[in-house]
Structures are given as structure tokens and as C-alpha cells.
């Protein structure tokens, strides 16, 4: 079990070369990219691709409609995460929400806990109002940066929910311990809540306290479902192909490992991926199976490394990092 600790006793190796980053894993990544791009290309030609119904997304219009009837604001929170794919996806969905709200002249509040997300959100929301032809309805203060500290942010959002009595709330993105604080506070003012977190640990809290929840990748499917843009629909189908490939690998791996781990080993494979004929009588070890070797990249063997030449120009820097 503790083989890695034992390896730490080896003296540091100087002059060794490449760390095998796992060629198969790299190929796998390229395969996913190929699936995605191919399907985006296909979707551009064939407009009639099917996406199953997602209840949480149908509820968006209902929630905004109710907020309009009550004359109360719609609250959107893109989570606490940095500006990454997740917050961009959340802002994409909020672009749609804002578009609908703008048509009904419904006030919105978009609260950010990350300055970079805030800056992008401001641009997107302003853009939405402009493209709807109602730039005058855009209030600069409707998109706010509150705090980048988790619980200060939680307290501010709860304060806004309670003071402004928001009628519809959308929590989408990366949420952590603050998820239940938001959801329960919004519930206490009777808001319709649609939520989605890419954090598996927080999804149960949202399910317990919100009206509609998008689970896992439904979050990424949302913009394709709402806008039906060919690029997004194609990418969604590419994701499905990828998952089929995953399933295939899981089944193959299970069958192959089950068979191989019960067979007798003829050669031993060491941590550097080198094989030696085996004299002892034993079963194949987990790291010696086909799957184990494909997905467990070998470490470089110092014995077979070509040493590097010295740099004639290098002068040892005083107090340097090396």
C-alpha cells in the first residue's frame, strides 16, 4: 500500500527527461474534442436535433411571469466560483432570464462574489438590454459585486432577498456551504427557486429547499435547450457520444480486468513500465492488466535517461529558487 512512501527514499534524480503524461489519456481527450467539433459541424447542417425536456428550464418563464405579476425583482446568483466555464455557463443562462425579464420590464438583481465574473456579467446584461431594444431599462446597479468572502457574500445575498422580497430566484454555478442559506432564505419569502450546482455536495441541499433543480450536466445542457443554437445543440450531442465512449470503456475495463486478474502472470511490469519474464507462480497484479497499464502512466526510468549538458552561460543566482 505504501509503495509511494518507500519510493520517496530514492535520492533526487538530476538530468532525467520526460514525465509520461499518459499518451492514451491524451488521445482520449483529443477523441472527446473530435466528437464535440464533429457534432457542432453536423448540427450546423441539420437543424432538427432532439433534446429531451428539462422541467427546471421550463420553470424559468413561469418564475419570471410570477415575479412580473407581483412586481418584485428576479434574483440571479452565478455562484462563488472564479471566471471559468461554469460561471460563463451560468451567465449564459442568466442572459436568457434577463432577456425574458427585460421584455416584461421586470427588475433584476444579479449578485456576484467574484470581481471578474461581475465585470463580464455587467457586459452581458447590458448587451441583452441593448439587443432587446430597451437600453433605458438597464440599471447599472442591478448587477452588483457584493463580497469575495464566502459568508459575507451569503449574508449580503440573504439581506437582498429579505429586503427586496424577491419573487423568483436563480442560483446557478459553483455553490458551496452558502447554498442552503440562500435557498432557505428565499423559501422564507415565498420565492420560486430554480437552482443548479456543479458541486455534487450542494445539489442535495438545493433539491431539499428549491422548487426546480438542474442536476449535474443538465446545467450545461440548459443553454442549448433554451436557445437551440446549432453550436450548443451539436456540442450537447458530442457530449452524449463521449459518455457512450466512457460507458464502453467501463464495460470493457470491467470485463478485461475480471478476466486478466484471474489469469497467471507471465511477466512482471515495474513502476517504470519495463517488463521482465517472471519465474514465480502468481496472478496478474492490478497495475499489470491492460487497463492498468493504459491508465496508469509509467514513471521515467533514471537508468535509461540521457544526461543533459551543462549550460556554459548559467551563473548560480544568489538566493535563487534553484
Amino acid at each position, binding site marked *: *500500500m505504501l509503495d*509511494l512512501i518507500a519510493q520517496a527514499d530514492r535520492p*533526487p534524480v538530476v538530468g532525467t527527461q520526460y514525465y509520461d503524461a499518459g499518451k492514451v489519456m491524451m488521445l482520449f481527450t483529443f477523441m472527446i474534442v473530435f466528437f464535440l467539433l464533429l457534432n457542432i459541424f453536423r448540427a450546423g447542417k441539420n437543424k432538427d436535433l432532439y433534446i429531451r425536456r428539462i422541467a427546471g428550464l421550463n420553470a424559468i418563464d413561469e418564475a419570471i411571469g410570477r415575479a412580473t405579476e407581483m412586481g418584485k425583482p428576479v434574483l440571479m446568483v452565478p455562484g462563488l466560483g472564479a471566471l471559468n466555464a461554469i460561471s460563463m455557463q451560468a451567465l449564459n443562462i442568466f442572459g436568457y432570464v434577463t432577456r425574458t425579464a427585460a421584455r416584461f420590464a421586470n427588475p433584476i438583481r444579479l449578485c456576484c462574489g467574484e470581481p471578474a465574473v461581475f465585470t463580464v456579467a455587467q457586459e452581458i446584461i447590458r448587451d441583452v438590454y441593448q439587443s432587446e431594444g430597451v437600453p433605458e431599462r438597464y440599471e447599472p446597479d442591478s448587477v452588483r459585486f457584493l463580497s469575495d468572502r464566502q459568508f459575507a457574500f451569503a449574508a449580503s445575498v440573504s439581506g437582498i432577498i429579505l429586503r427586496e422580497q424577491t419573487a423568483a430566484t436563480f442560483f446557478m454555478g459553483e455553490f*458551496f*456551504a452558502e447554498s442552503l442559506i440562500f435557498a432557505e432564505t428565499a423559501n422564507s419569502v415565498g420565492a420560486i427557486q430554480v437552482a443548479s450546482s456543479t458541486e455534487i455536495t450542494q445539489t442535495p441541499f438545493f433539491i431539499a429547499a428549491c422548487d426546480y433543480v438542474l442536476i449535474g450536466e443538465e446545467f450545461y445542457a440548459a443553454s442549448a435547450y433554451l436557445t437551440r443554437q446549432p453550436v450548443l445543440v451539436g456540442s450537447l450531442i458530442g457530449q452524449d457520444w463521449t459518455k457512450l465512449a466512457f460507458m464502453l470503456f467501463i464495460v470493457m475495463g470491467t470485463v478485461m480486468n475480471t478476466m486478466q486478474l484471474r489469469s497467471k502472470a507471465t511477466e512482471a511490469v515495474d513502476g517504470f513500465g519495463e517488463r521482465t519474464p517472471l519465474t514465480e507462480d502468481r496472478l496478474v497484479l492490478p497495475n499489470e492488466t491492460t487497463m492498468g497499464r493504459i491508465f496508469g502512466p509509467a514513471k521515467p526510468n533514471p537508468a535509461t535517461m540521457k544526461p543533459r549538458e551543462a549550460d556554459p552561460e548559467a551563473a548560480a543566482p544568489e538566493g*535563487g529558487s534553484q
Partner: protein
Amino acid sequence: MSETVETKSLGEKLLSIPKPVLYLVLILATALPLFFPMALPNEPKDMAVKLNESINALKDGSTVIIQSDWTESTRGESRGQMDILLRMLMRKNIKFAICSAADPQAPEVFRNLVLQLNKERKAKGEREYEKWNDWVELGFYPSGEALGQGIAANIRDAFGGKRDAPPGGQDRPVFESPVLKDIQKVDDLGMYFVVTGTKSIIIAIERFSDRVAMGGMVTGVMGPETSNYFYSGQLKGLSSGLKGVYDMCSLEERDHPGTTMLKREEQYILSLHAAIFLLIIAVVVGNVGVFLTRRSK
């Protein structure tokens, strides 16, 4: 008003317990056990047993890195995790370097803990853990991704710009310290620990769990997700939530009596029991209320 109360059926009454009453019961149920300590029977979980074994298997005097990503908000769980980890490392004379990647306040919090443990050691007549010679601070890194990537690529570069001072001395680069002088790459570390309430541990696992033995100490909420990586072998051991702390303390106390805060953890675990028990009751009461109301209608 009193008329409305009288017309309520039992089911309706069960469904309309005011929130403040629920909250008060919770406060009482979790606070009372703190005044009446009692040891509960406990079977340490496999994950904690493996973590304990991994720490004990470390060579005396070797170096580990602790990524400390917790602050006062998850103090209830994370402080206990960090406490037992530091106690075990100090007992084995293992040198440690501490960095943080989740919250700028994290360095302040672990510094206070080391300070307190040193005070305790001094009072017991044991050797104090000296900054620079026994432990160094590697500071705060705003991006966990970048830190993970940097450590995997070249640990000397990742922490190269950091300086720390020997007691009473001038700042010097941390890699000149006895703690890190022999560390050329991440593989040279005895172990890499992450004490966290966030998924920063998952980023670290993704980046270099194939190159150094990793131990995780996470909050109860993060437990189920992180346990995936224990079962896949990427984590050598895992302590999850208060139960994890209690397990770790019990295991350490079994081998080295009187060295941990087991008594404090016993009280905490009792409070946790009270809270969980109350949750079960709340769920049952709510459902019985619905059932009775439906039947009466």
C-alpha cells in the same frame, strides 16, 4: 386565536411547529452534551485507519507538505483535523511546510494553531517546533489550479520565491531551510496532506497524486465526494468530518495515550449525535404530520 389552535388536528399541529422552537431545541440538544461529557462506543472507519497507518509509516525526520485550506468557518471539523495531524507529525519529528490555496486567512489560522501546540509542548517540557528548522510557511496562493500545476511541474519554482526566517534571523529562501533543502521535486516528499473544507483537495489529487502519497482531511460535507479518491487509491487515507477526527484521535490515543484532544472530540461527537438524532426526529415528525393530515381529510 385560541379557537384556531383548538380546531387543529394532531397532524396539523405536527406540521406547524414554529421555526424558533425547532431552532431552540437544536441549540439545547447540541449545547447540553458539551456540559456532560461521555465517551460513546466507536469503530474507526477504514479510511481513517489507513491515514493513521500512512502517517505512522513516514520515516522520522522526513518532510511533508500540508496544504491548509480551512478557516474559522469550518473550524469545528477542520481545526480538529489539523490538530491531530500536527500532533502526530510533531511526535514523529517530521518536518512540515504549510501552504494555502483557498482563503487568504488560512495562514493566520494554522499559524495560531502551531503557536498553541508549541505552548503546550513547552508546558510539558518537550522540544518546541522551531520555525525554519522544523517547519516553514509557504504562504497563500490565490489559485489552487495554478499552485497544483506549479507543484507538479517544478516544486522548486512553485515555492521558489518564498522566504521565511530562522528565529531571530534574516529572511532567506525557504529551499535553504533544513525542512526543504533536500526536496527537488514533489516525489521527494514523504507525503502531501490537504486539510480542507473545499474541493481544493480534488485539484491537488488531479495534479500530482500519482507522484506523491497523499492524505486527505476534509469536512463531513466533502466526505462522500472525496472518498471516491480513497477507494480509487489516489488518497492513501482520508479523515472525514468530526467522525474522522474522532477516529484519528482514538487511533492515536490507542498507541500513544494522553497525546491528543480525545476528550474534546468526545464532547463534539456527542453533540453531533444529538444533532443527527434530532434531524431524524424532525424528518419523522414532518412525515407523520403529513400522513395524519391526509388521513383525516
